[in-house]
Structure formats: structure tokens, C-alpha cells
């Protein structure tokens, strides 16, 4: 199957306008005949479901939580980007586009990123009209702050709860449509499989998590808005329930999975404290506006801090290494996430970490508090400081925070074309679940932007291009494909329940996560990846022989839910490792130790970059990897979409 990205003709800045004009329309009387399934109720799914229902389509929306308001978009803290240029500091659609392409290390699709930048402004208007209480200046107009990878202030925010406020706006729009009858909502319902009829996505199989009932739902198109796969690492900043099941089941039915090795390790999280730990907590990137990151210059000082013999305040300024400010003077503490994370790892690998485990660096507000006063800092970051104090048990107004990188976001996802449709006709993928906009690294405050752009503004136009080719309601649950998919799901559950082994689901999840973090975390190499590919098979085989799930399948059974998700992570993890192995270059969040600049490189000698920076190989790897599933124990087949750069010329990504 060939990969046709369906990028419209014409200059980049005209593509979306032209595409909207060229897209098919469905008249209002006919829209109500089409049914669309939306899986997931976060920013992408919630906004898509609400907007499609407003347009007149029949929508069925599914989420695993007890309410659509709980989706993990809610945990996003810092903000949402938009090229409004309210600050008059030189921002524009063009600049947001370029920052995002460069931030993604030239591994994303130009046309999609340009469209994202264009619609970014509409999102702020929409959210404000819904009553989202963005931060304001005293004059009553909207305020902005800066985020990593940008030298303009374009981030709109609602204290440290921007994701919550945007999601509530979106949830309220969704509830309004539920009340009007446009959306039928299914909470505590998990998608277990995708149903294909003649190669087209025409429905899903779900499990009612309260009764255990397996049901099928038919529709004219299916939208997956199911988030990322960060929980393959076990410990991440994702919610406990985040999983890859919907996307991976679609992959097993033929949808291509793109760039799974592009995983984002966020630099500012609270360090791991013990084996019992169930998740990691992010400290918003916005803290880097005023916080300065450092470790001691000497290993001796670092050791003294770890042993409790010295405190941060005992280290005078001349003995501190503000390493981001030193290495990247023009971006300083606001260097992009992948770069800031690797720098923290380097400092700790060098023996200069300050947490007890050795894996932690300081994020220090001392200078900001001296300059602005404690009250200003409290107004800006109060809830984040409080959150830190609750978890770490230390007062960050007096002692610097201790942070370390943690898995946060996944740029890879199901392959989609410009219409956000996968290679399977009818299957559309939105938000973090697709691959298209962030390349190999996502900039801060861009995830909320993408989820809402896809749901509010892109899919409502592009879905008609597919639906107009379909006779509405032509496929129902009576079709044989639904019956057989349902049977497969029931058999898989039966199989899981019948193992009755001796080890818990969490045991396997942790084993898998530790392996992937160790061999495919902030740095990867060929030998390590090959070793991990073999090991993951061993863990998977053992899981299917020895996992223990108590209770019954026909009722609320949280171990069974987890087991289904972990079973998919055990297969997906291998794909992630294989992708990382195949991509023999470093780019963004994918850092292959073999591919970094050394002092013999001309680019280092001429001062364009520094030793240890990621080295891309554009001549060989300027493409999107799209993996085709060929069976659990078979090697997947790689398809490539070449990346074409018309406006942004790939260059060394410098933040010096």
C-alpha cells in the first residue's frame, strides 16, 4: 500500500485555505444520517465530538473514565501556544510554524505544522468565548508567558492549570451536545478492537467496565483520540489508565504506526524516590521562566549534598554550574525539552547529581525571589510550589526544587494523511494518538494546541472528504465482521482469565518499563536495543504463562483491565525498540549514542554546534517511518513517507 499524504498543491501558506475550498460538503439534512464514533474524550476527542454534533452528525463518544472531564489532557499545566502576537514581540504564524518545525528537529510534515500554526489563534478565541479563564493583565486583556524553544511570549495560560480549564471548556461543550441529543456518551467503556468491513473502519468492539459486557457499535467513520503510549515505560507523568490499546488494536488491523521511537522525556519532574512508586509528577516547564537549573561544579560538593553534609545554600555561586545557561546562552533555561533533559542526564552521569539516588538537579528560585519578591513568585507558580511541597516534603521557597527528567509525551502515533485519516479508510486519528505535528520533539504548550486544532477546526472540515464517499448507515452491527471481532475479544479475555498464574500484572508492567527506560530512554544504542528486543519477548511469553488475574470477567475488575493494556504494551514495546534500532541517527527525543557530534566534525570546529549534540542524517533518514503489522512474532514491514521541506530548510538545530 502506498502512503499518500494528500498534501494540497500550492504554496504552504495557501494550502489549508485551498483545501477547505476543495473539501467536500455534506448538506445539513444529510449530516444527521451519518454516525461517527469518537474514542476518547480529552481535548482532541471532546472537541471533535462536540463540534461534529454541533454540525449535525450523530456522534457516539467513549471513554474509560467515569466522566469525560477526567481525560488526562486535564493535567497539562503550563499553557497553550498561539500566534496572536498580542505582545507585539515579532510573533507570526510563520514564526510559530518555524519554531515548531525546528523544535521537532525537522522530522514533521510541513503542511500539517503550518495549518496548526494558522488555526492556533482560533483556539484562543473559541476557548475564551466558552468561558475559559485565561490569565489577564490589569487592563483586562490576555496575558502571555514564554516556553521552551521560543524567543517570543506566545503562551496563553490559566495559572498552572491550563489543561484543566481548556478541558472543562471542551467538556461543557460536549455535555451541552449530550443534553441536546447530538452525542451519546459511554463512560467506563473501553475500546477493545476495531471492526473493518471491506477494509474500511466501520465500528468498534467495547467492554462495559462495570458489567463486563462486550458490545459492538457500528458507524460510518471512527475517530481515535486516545492519547499517547508513555505508560509503556511504566513510570511516566501519564495518568494510571493511559494506554495504547485502541491505537495498537487499530495497528494490528492494518493501520500503520509511525515513529514510535520519538518519545519525549520532560526535563522537570520530581525524581523517583522508591520501588513502590506508581507514577511521576511533572513540574511545569513554565517554572523555567524564573527558575535556574544547576548542579555543583565539583563532584565532591555533589557527594556532600547527597550525603546530607551540605545544603544547596552552602554552595557559593562560583562553585555552581548553571549548565543550560553555560551551554545555550541565547535560550538559557528555556532550551527545548529534549536538550534540557539530556543535559541533566549528562550532569548526573558525570557524578554531579544532587538527589540521594544521584539522579536529580536543582531548579532554583533564589534569584527570582530576590528580584521579584516571594509574593510575585507565589502568584505565578503558587499551586506548583504547593504540589512540590506535598510530594517532596520540602519548602521550595527556601530550598531549591530537585528535579529529574521523566517520560511525558509521545510524538509517534498512528500514521495519518492531511485529512487526519490513517491508511485504513474511515479511521481518523487526532491529538497525541497521531504522529503528524511534532516531529522528533514537541515544544512546550503545543500539545493542547494540537489536540484542540484537530478536534475543533481540522476534522470538522476534513471528515466530509471521507463521509461523502460513503452511503450513510450502510453497515450495521448485524454484519458478520462485528460478530467475529466480538468473538475474538471474548476469547482473548477468556484466555487472560484462564492463566491463573502467580505474578501480578504490575510485575510485568514494571519489568517492561524498566527495560525500555534502560535501553530506550534518554539515550539508546544498537547493542542495547538488540538486547532489549530479545528480552521483551521473554517477558511477553512469561506474561501469557504466569500472570494472575483474580475475580470474574463479568463485572468491575481492574486487574483484568490492566492486564489487557499491559498485554498490548508488551507487543507495542517491541515495535518501539525496533523503530529506535532502525533509525540510525539522532534527532529530537531519539538520541542514538553512536550518532552525536564529536570534536572532529567540521560543524563543531566552526562553532555551529557542540560536542555531544544530536547528529541527524538527513540524506538517509529524512522520512516518516510507518510500520505495518505482520503478526506478533514477525518483523513489521517499514513504509516510508519522504519529508519535503519547501519553506523550512533543515539545518543544525542550534539554541546556543
Amino acid at each position, binding site marked *: 500500500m502506498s502512503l499518500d499524504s494528500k498534501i494540497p498543491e500550492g504554496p504552504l501558506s495557501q494550502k489549508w485555505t485551498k483545501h477547505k475550498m476543495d473539501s467536500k460538503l455534506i448538506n445539513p439534512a444529510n449530516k444527521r444520517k451519518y454516525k461517527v464514533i469518537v474514542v476518547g474524550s480529552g481535548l482532541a476527542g471532546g472537541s471533535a465530538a462536540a463540534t461534529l454534533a454541533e454540525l449535525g452528525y450523530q456522534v457516539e463518544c467513549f471513554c474509560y*473514565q*467515569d*466522566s*469525560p*472531564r*477526567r481525560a488526562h489532557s*486535564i*493535567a497539562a499545566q503550563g499553557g497553550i501556544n498561539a500566534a*496572536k502576537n498580542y505582545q507585539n514581540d515579532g510573533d507570526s504564524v510563520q514564526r510559530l510554524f518555524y519554531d515548531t518545525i525546528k523544535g521537532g528537529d525537522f522530522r514533521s510534515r510541513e503542511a500539517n505544522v503550518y495549518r496548526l500554526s494558522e488555526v492556533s489563534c*482560533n483556539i*484562543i*478565541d*473559541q476557548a*475564551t*468565548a*466558552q*468561558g475559559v*479563564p*485565561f490569565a*489577564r*493583565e*490589569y487592563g*483586562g*486583556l*490576555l496575558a502571555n508567558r514564554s516556553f521552551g524553544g521560543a524567543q517570543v511570549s506566545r503562551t496563553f495560560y*490559566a495559572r498552572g*492549570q491550563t489543561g*484543566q*480549564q481548556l478541558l*472543562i471548556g471542551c*467538556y461543557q*461543550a460536549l*455535555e*451541552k451536545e449530550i443534553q441536546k441529543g447530538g452525542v451519546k*456518551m459511554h*463512560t467506563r467503556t473501553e475500546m477493545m478492537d476495531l471492526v473493518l468491513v471491506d477494509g474500511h473502519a466501520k465500528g468498534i468492539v467495547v467492554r462495559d467496565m*462495570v458489567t463486563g459486557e462486550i458490545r459492538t457499535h457500528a458507524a460510518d467513520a471512527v475517530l481515535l483520540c486516545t492519547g499517547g503510549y508513555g505508560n509503556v515505560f511504566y513510570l511516566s507523568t501519564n*495518568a*494510571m489508565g493511559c494506554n495504547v490499546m485502541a491505537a495498537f488494536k487499530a495497528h494490528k488491523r492494518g493501520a500503520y504506526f509511525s515513529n514510535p521511537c520519538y518519545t519525549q522525556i520532560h526535563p522537570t519532574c520530581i525524581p523517583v*524516590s*522508591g520501588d*513502590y*512508586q*506508581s507514577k511521576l*509528577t*511533572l513540574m511545569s516547564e513554565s517554572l523555567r521562566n524564573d527558575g535556574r537549573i544547576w548542579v555543583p561544579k565539583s563532584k565532591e560538593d555533589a557527594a556532600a549534598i547527597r550525603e546530607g553534609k551540605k545544603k544547596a545554600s552552602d554552595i557559593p555561586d562560583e562553585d555552581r554550574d548553571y549548565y543550560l545557561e553555560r551551554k545555550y546562552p541565547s535560550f538559557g533555561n528555556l532550551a527545548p525539552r529534549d536538550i534540557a533533559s539530556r543535559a541533566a542526564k549528562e550532569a548526573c552521569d558525570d557524578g554531579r547529581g544532587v538527589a540521594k539516588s544521584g539522579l536529580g538537579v536543582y531548579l532554583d528560585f533564589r534569584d527570582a525571589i530576590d528580584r521579584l519578591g516571594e509574593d510575585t513568585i507565589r502568584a505565578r507558580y503558587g499551586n506548583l510550589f*504547593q*504540589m512540590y511541597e*506535598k*510530594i517532596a*516534603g520540602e519548602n521550595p521557597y527556601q530550598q531549591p526544587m530537585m528535579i529529574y527528567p521523566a517520560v511525558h509525551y509521545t510524538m509517534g502515533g498512528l500514521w495519518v494523511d492531511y485529512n487526519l485519516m490513517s491508511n485504513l479508510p474511515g479511521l481518523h486519528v487526532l491529538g497525541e494518538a497521531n504522529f503528524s505535528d511534532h516531529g522528533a520533539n514537541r515544544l512546550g504548550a503545543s500539545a493542547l494546541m494540537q489536540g484542540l486544532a484537530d478536534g475543533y*477546526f481540522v476534522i470538522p472540515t476534513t471528515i466530509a472528504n471521507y463521509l461523502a464517499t460513503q452511503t450513510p448507515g450502510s453497515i450495521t452491527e448485524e454484519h458478520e465482521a462485528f460478530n467475529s471481532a466480538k468473538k475474538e475479544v471474548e476469547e482473548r479475555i477468556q484466555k487472560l482469565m484462564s492463566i491463573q498464574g502467580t505474578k*501480578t500484572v*504490575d510485575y510485568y508492567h514494571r519489568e517492561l518499563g524498566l527495560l525500555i527506560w534502560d535501553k530506550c530512554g534518554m539515550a539508546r544504542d544498537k547493542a542495547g536495543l538488540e538486547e532489549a528486543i530479545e528480552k521483551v519477548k521473554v517477558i511477553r511469553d512469561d506474561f501469557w504463562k504466569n500472570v*494472575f488475574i*483474580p*475475580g470474574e470477567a463479568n*463485572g*468491575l475488575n481492574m*486487574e483484568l483491565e490492566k492486564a489487557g493494556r499491559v498485554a498490548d504494551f508488551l507487543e507495542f514495546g517491541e515495535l518501539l525498540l525496533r523503530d529506535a534500532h532502525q533509525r540510525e541517527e539522532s534527532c529530537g527525543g531519539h538520541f542514538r549514542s553512536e550518532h552525536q557530534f564529536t570534536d572532529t566534525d567540521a560543524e563543531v570546529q566552526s562553532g555551529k554546534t557542540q560536542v555531544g549534540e544530536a547528529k541527524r542524517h538527513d540524506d538517509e533518514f529524512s522520512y516518516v517511518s510507518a510500520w505495518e503489522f505482520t503478526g506478533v512474532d514477525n518483523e513489521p514491514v517499514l513504509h516510508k513517507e519522504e519529508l519535503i521541506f519547501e519553506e523550512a530548510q533543515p539545518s543544525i538545530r542550534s539554541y546556543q
Partner: protein
Amino acid sequence: MNLTLKVWRQKNANDPGQLETYQAKEIPSEASFLEMLDIVNNQILEQGQDPIHFDHDCREGICGMCSLNINGIPHSKEQGITTCQVHMRKFSDGDTIWIEPFRAKAFPIVKDLVVDRSSFDRIIQAGGYIDVRTGSAPDANSVPISKEVADAAFDAATCIGCGACVAACKNASAMLFVSAKASHLNQLPQGAPEKEARVIGMVEQMDEEGFGNCTNHFECEAVCPKSISADNIAKLNRDYLLAKAKQSVSS
């Protein structure tokens, strides 16, 4: 530390349920309360038993999914946090901890500590939104809103819909939840056109769901993990009265 837990176990909605005793052994003081339950569940699983079911998801205090009455108080006696943000360093070795579900007629128990809070969603459906068609919004800066108003709306908007206010109230009233949403939307200029329909719709739905009336004890405010003020209830009462008066005059 070692603890004794008295945990509410209930197989399903129809089961009468009862308190069971568990020993939580060697719990690290850095662990969170839910991680303590994870450890206990692991011990239960090792004995081949069904683990304690409880709702949770983000584990950072924002999704509103976690609940639990801890020693009789929703989200524990610690102020301004959710259950998932409670840490074991707040307990002492040898403590006995009672863990029960949020209890209210409008929050039926699903299993163990898991309750059904979909009544909150239906209250939002009855008016907890601003009806704005996607794509029809004016430029975000075309309507200036003073910082004071924006901040006050924000304070009310921080509600996470956890239901602690209901669980703490002896009448199982949802007034803090309803008033927070009404207050968030009513004071913004964008929310003004639907103000009256909103308060009448939400209050009537609240009554229909079986939540009780407010008798001004303000237990809700004391347990709210987002410290939402009970002043919002006074605002709601005023707005509701005015809306009803207008409705009766115009009908």
C-alpha cells in the same frame, strides 16, 4: 511503618457490604496514600484474592477521579488536597485508618470504594456551559475582562468535580459544586446571556438527582481540595431567586 486498615468492601451495587480489616506492612513514609493501597493490593493478590477497588487516574490532584473517606473525612483531614496527594508521612506507625467510599444517595456504590458520580455530569448538561458554536467566536481580546473578575471566575472554575463536598455534607447537598460552576460562568460577560436559564436548570437537576438541601454548615468548603469558597453558594441563592422571580413575572 505498619498500619491497620478498616476498608469498606462491597462486591457490587446490590451487595450490602461490610468493613474488612487488613494489615499494611512496611509502608515507606514517602509513599502516597494510594501507593500504600497499591502495596496492600499486591499483598492481597499474592494470596489470590480480589484487590480493593478504588477510583484513581492522574494521581496528581487534578482529574477528580480519586475519592475515599479517610478516617471519616473526604480526601483526609489534610486541607486543600485530594486523596492521591495525601502522603503516608502524615500518619504514624501503628495507626488504624478507616477507608470508606463517598456516601450519598446520588452517588450509588459500584464496587468497594468506587461510586457513580454521573449525576454531576447531568447537572452540567442542565446549564453548566456557555453555548458557543465552534468557529463563531470573536477575537479573544475584543471583550476585556478586569483581572479581578477573571481571577474570581478562575477561583470558582478550579472545581475538579470529585464530589467531596457532597460526601462531607450531612444532607449530601451538591450546592458547592453547582454554585462553583454557576459562579464561574455567571460573572464572565460571555456567560451573562444564559445566566438565568443556567441557575434554574442546574438547581432543578440537582434536586432531581436526589442531592439534599444546604443548611449552611459549610463542611463542603472545609474539605474541598481546591478550597472553593462557600460564598459561591450565597451568590447562587441570590441568582436563583432573581431568576425565579423574573420567570414568575414573565409567565
